[in-house]
Structures are given as structure tokens and as C-alpha cells.
């Protein structure tokens, strides 16, 4: 019998706003102070976090990597493949989420729709792109 595949995710933000990003798509995690360039601002997802630290995640896109600016600590989450459920377009499109992670059938958090983030500069993406400057000390 073939073992069920396990998928890994990087979780950004704090409950109840936390979202997951497929770990395989994350190319690099940088401290905010080490990044320079344009990033989508997802810091609102971590508004409830006690941890005010900032990171920039570089995630794989079709073309250039997409930079996501997040607030708070990052967690790693493993889920069985059968616990990662595609969201119906009716729900996923407006939320900018592609999947639902539901361990033992209990909805836990959504997976960011990375494919749509590619179009972010042309459509009404809920997260604005802005320039992040490296911190000077």
C-alpha cells in the first residue's frame, strides 16, 4: 500500500487571519531589513500577532519571484494530501485562496492562491504592492 503524501506549508499571520503558502514555493525568507524592492503587503494578516518582527518571503511565480511582506513569526505546517481541499471558485476567487486545509475534516486555514498573485498588479488584489527599503543602522 502506498503511503499518503504529506504536504508542507509555511504559515504566515496569526489566527484567525493566518494563511498557508506551499513550502515548496517559498524560495527564500529574508528579514525585512535585508530586503530591497517591491513586495505585496500581507502584514495585516499578522495584526493579531504579539510578534512584530517583519519578514519578506520570496515565492516562486511563473516569471520573477513574488515578494510577500509579512508580520510576526512563521510556522511550518504538515498536512496529508487528502486534508488539503480545493476551494470552489465561488469562494476562492473573492478570497484569493486556492485550497482549504482541514485536518480530520475540521477547517483550519486557507492556502494563498499564488497563481492569482501573479496577476496582482492588474486586478483588484486585496494586498497592495509597495517598496521595501533595507534598514540602515
Amino acid at each position, binding site marked *: 500500500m502506498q503511503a499518503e503524501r504529506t504536504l508542507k506549508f509555511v504559515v504566515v499571520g496569526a489566527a*484567525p*487571519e493566518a494563511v498557508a503558502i506551499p513550502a515548496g514555493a517559498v524560495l527564500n525568507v529574508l528579514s525585512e531589513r535585508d530586503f530591497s524592492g517591491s513586495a505585496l503587503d500581507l502584514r495585516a494578516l499578522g495584526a493579531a500577532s504579539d510578534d512584530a518582527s517583519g519578514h519578506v518571503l520570496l515565492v516562486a511565480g511563473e516569471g520573477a519571484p513574488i515578494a510577500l511582506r509579512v508580520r510576526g513569526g512563521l510556522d511550518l505546517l504538515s498536512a496529508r494530501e*487528502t486534508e488539503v*481541499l*480545493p*476551494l*470552489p*471558485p*465561488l*469562494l476562492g*476567487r*473573492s*478570497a*484569493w*485562496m486556492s*485550497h*482549504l486545509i*482541514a485536518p480530520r*475534516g*475540521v*477547517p*483550519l*486555514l*486557507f492556502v494563498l492562491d499564488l497563481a492569482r498573485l501573479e496577476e496582482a498588479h492588474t486586478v483588484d488584489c*486585496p494586498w497592495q504592492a509597495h517598496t521595501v527599503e533595507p534598514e540602515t543602522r
Partner: protein
Amino acid sequence: MDAHVLPIQLDSTWFFIEARHVREVLGAEPWLPIPRSRAELPGVVVWRGRAVPLVDLGRVLGIAQGAAKGRPRTLIVRHERGVAALPIDAARVVRRIPSEELKLVQGGLIPYGTREFEEQGEIVTLIDLETLLSDLDRAAGASGDAG
């Protein structure tokens, strides 16, 4: 021809929906709110290994505002474009009602109410679930399978 209807309760009001839509009546199911969702589609539940949209029927019918979370039953229904979960307060056994006793709604005070049935002085409205769910689907701009 007789109609087969499921009586469902929202707050203190009873409605009928066509029994052919109903797949299962569950208890209160855990659901996750969806960011930036329409108020009528506030969340998602898991049913038989799939993510299913939660429809706040009380809000759609104009009898409750955002009370979906506290309802003790969840109705799983199938429609033309997929499956949906409806939080309700109660359901009774399916009833068979002669079609001639289901009168056309006069006035249309309840959205998607198409027929009425009078029993012991009480009026119970039959909800056109197919049209209701199709309208939500269209309004959300979705294409393809909605559940």
C-alpha cells in the same frame, strides 16, 4: 402530482424546501470564515472530503442578520452547480403535499418564496432553492462547479 418537501426552521419561522435537494441533515458543523466573502456566503464547511460553501439562508431570506454561526443543524443540499451547506435551527421529516394545496405566493414578501401552504392558520412558504443558489453563484462571479 404531490410535492415532497422538507420543513426547516430559521428562528421561529418554518419554511419548505424541495426534498430532492437534500443530501444530509447534520448537527452544528465547524466552519471557517472566508476573508472578503459576501455576507450571504460567510464561510466554508467540510463535507465528505470536500470544501462546501456555507450559505446564510436566514440572511438571504431577510429574517436574520449574521446568525449562521449559532444554528444547531446544518443542511447539506445539492443544486445544479454543486453542493452547499445551510445552517438551520431544525428540520422535520419529509412531507408529501398535494400540489393543489401549494398555492402561488401572492405579494412576494419572502425572497425566493414561490408557493405557500396553509396549515392550522399558519402559512409555510416553499423556497426555490435552485434559483436562490444559482443567483448566489452568479453574483459571486463563479464559473464551473460551485461546490
